[in-house]
């Protein structure tokens, strides 16, 4: 948790990352930046999915629709916050010459997306029958 607070402080302090370690090969930094952007795209896609559930499943009951949409939007928020946090951690690890941080987040996110997808299939099928 304290690590997390330190990372959050790093998000807003542009020069602090540079105080640590040496300047890495810029190609590593750019690759890290592209990974960050890929996570942001994931977040944007989840947000778009939230909108899509709300708009393209109009026959669902209100509670299910809003619940699924909110789950996707929450996943989007988490993904974008995680994108910055992971970027800062990787940048620091690269500068210090340490191993890159391991993360459980991809597994958790894919499980969450799988659950939402399953619920959606069940709910849509049940909606058609009912």
């Amino acid at each position: 948790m304290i690590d997390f607070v330190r990372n959050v402080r790093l998000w807003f302090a542009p020069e602090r990352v540079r105080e640590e370690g040496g300047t890495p090969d810029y190609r590593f930094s750019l690759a890290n930046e592209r990974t960050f952007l890929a996570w942001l795209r994931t977040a944007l896609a989840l947000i778009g999915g939230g909108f899509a559930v709300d708009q393209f499943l109009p026959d669902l009951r209100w509670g299910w629709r809003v619940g699924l949409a909110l789950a996707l939007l929450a996943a989007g928020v988490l993904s974008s916050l995680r994108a910055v946090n992971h970027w800062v951690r990787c940048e620091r690890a690269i500068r210090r010459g340490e191993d890159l941080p391991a993360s459980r987040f991809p597994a958790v996110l894919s499980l969450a997306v799988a659950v939402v997808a399953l619920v959606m299939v069940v709910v849509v099928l049940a909606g058609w029958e009912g």
Partner: protein
Amino acid sequence: MSAPARDPGLQPERTRLAWRRTTLSGAVAAVLAVRSALHGGPTPAGIVAAALCCLLWLGFLALAHRRIRALAAAAADGVPVLTPRHASAAALCTVALAVCAAALLF
């Protein structure tokens, strides 16, 4: 550390395109927001939320543009590294977009 004259991996170009792709994804999300606001009779609150989404997308576009300009300008003395503030601003745009989206649901 001096950058090679021409990087065979085209790293700055790939990074530029990654910013473009991400801006495009944001545009799709903003269009869906506008569609959602106009769907089933526009309400004042819906219009405000959709306008906020568009503004956030413009903010992201500006961030991407600044980063792309920085990447293009720095040919000689290495490529400037993305600053944490820039990265957090981009992520916060995304978070705010999700908050507006949640507001649009109700």
